[in-house]
């Protein structure tokens, strides 16, 4: 059975905040996708100055060490081999309109990693993870002094793939397949943060599904009812593990299953000739009556206490 080779797309935004709280969440990772090819990271920041300051521009720096450590809080703009500091300017004269907050913009990961002393394709020579600091300075119109300075906390450049899940199964459901799997313990690789499942059409003998590959939202459990499928179609199911940095594992094929209509207990009962009609001669009236009785007794008890 042929399965599509397109992996599901990481769903996290990759936005990395600098400075004041511009975004509700902080992404502390630069992942493998952001490191390869034309990979980018998105950055935005908010200064503590006025909303717009005419002529103020920003400069973005990267370093492999905390800018606040031994540099007087200033963004390090040049390397210092004596301290093994890799640092440099990623972009200059950002913000021609003086916007504050500075809206998200994309910056090439290769430039960031290069000035921080890392080859984004391979990491450093011994590991696939590294720590990078990004720093922003606001510069006045005359390039005389800094009017704003902010930095990120440590960002982890992490290209490691998490370990694929093992085992697993796929079983039928009504317009769905049920998928389960087992996380494979592996202390050498990053832990599983979430999973994404895809279901690829494998056999349309009974019914036709116009969507060849269905991809789930992120799942944090080890089992999932994958709905929205077409009854009669056989699907092949794969599970992808994602790390905290949003790096993907290799997929694990957990099996095939046919989406089939299912008969719940009531339907089975009626199909067998059951005489119960359901509905309300009954329904919620009994609940309401009892709730009312409970309320009366509770009120009586309260009155007694007073």
């Amino acid at each position, binding site marked *: 059975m042929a399965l599509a080779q397109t992996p599901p797309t990481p769903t996290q935004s990759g936005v990395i905040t600098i400075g004041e709280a511009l975004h509700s969440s902080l992404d502390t990772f630069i992942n493998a996708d952001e490191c390869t090819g034309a990979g980018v990271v998105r950055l935005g920041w908010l200064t503590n100055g006025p909303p717009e300051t005419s002529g103020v521009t920003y400069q973005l720096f990267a370093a492999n060490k905390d800018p606040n450590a031994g540099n007087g809080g200033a963004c390090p703009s040049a390397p210092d081999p004596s301290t093994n500091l890799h640092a440099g300017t990623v972009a200059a004269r950002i913000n021609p309109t003086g916007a504050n907050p500075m809206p998200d913009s994309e910056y090439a990961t290769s430039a960031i990693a290069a000035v921080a002393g890392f080859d984004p394709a391979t990491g450093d020579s011994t590991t696939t993870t590294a720590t990078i600091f990004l720093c922003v300075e606001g510069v006045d119109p005359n390039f005389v002094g800094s009017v704003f300075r902010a930095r990120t906390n440590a960002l982890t450049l992490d290209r490691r793939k998490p370990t694929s899940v093992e085992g697993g199964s796929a079983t039928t459901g009504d317009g769905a397949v*049920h998928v389960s799997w087992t996380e494979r313990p592996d202390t050498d690789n990053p832990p599983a943060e979430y999973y994404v499942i895809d279901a690829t059409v494998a056999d349309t003998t009974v019914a036709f599904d116009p969507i060849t590959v269905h991809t789930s939202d992120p799942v944090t459990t080890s089992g999932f009812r994958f709905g929205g499928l077409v009854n009669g179609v056989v699907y092949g199911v794969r599970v992808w593990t994602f790390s905290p940095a949003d790096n993907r594992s290799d997929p694990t094929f957990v099996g095939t299953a046919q989406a089939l209509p299912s008969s*719940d207990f009531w339907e089975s009962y009626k199909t067998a000739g059951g005489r119960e009609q359901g509905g309300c001669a009954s329904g919620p009236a009994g609940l309401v009556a009892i709730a009312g009785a409970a309320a009366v007794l509770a009120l009586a008890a309260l009155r007694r206490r007073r």
Partner: protein
Amino acid sequence: MKRIVVAALLAALASAARAESPRWGSFDLSVGNYKPDIDAEFAGTMAGPFEQAFGTGRGWMFRVGAAKALFTNAGSLEVGFQTGYHKRTGKALAVDPITQTVVGPSGDETTLHIIPTTLTLTYRFDFLADRYRIPLAPYGRAALERYNWWVTDGKGSTSRAGATNGWSVTGGLALLLDVFDPDLAREMDNDSGVNHTYLFFEARKSTIDDFGSSKSWDLSDKNLSYAGGLLFVF
């Protein structure tokens, strides 16, 4: 002489009984077993739809109740209500979309939920426990029952809902826990107004079939339902 000794012993026990806060009624919590006899209407050797979906085992029934004492002079007669929850979850059946025949169990779950609502009349012979601290109080209860139920499918949607009426009788024995720590019992009465605490065990025989209606399924327990719990008299 023997009568005098017994009288003196009873008097001593009676004097040990503490002064209590006024009594209003009782509150109880219990857990027991239960299995509706839905398959009773499907006579034959094949497993009925209930057994196919949920198997042959018995499930848990949780109940909570409150009652108002009508009198407490020679034992306690109480009228009250109970409610609770019972859930059975099993596998739905997969159906071939062309032939409409069952091909086996589905990965989808199906669930039967039951919320019993019960009006009760209980007589508890707690005279000896109240007066002489003899820590056992047998009791009997007659009840009108209304089992509110609904069935959900694999997506969690309600497939069908309804209610079935009936009645039940219960017999039980309550063990007065106060005798094990009278000081704590007295403190509890002072702090919260709980006069007595009992541990109880009971057996219930229920008939829940809309009083024999030909259009109703049978939610009676084919066997006795056994339960245990705590009773607070306040």
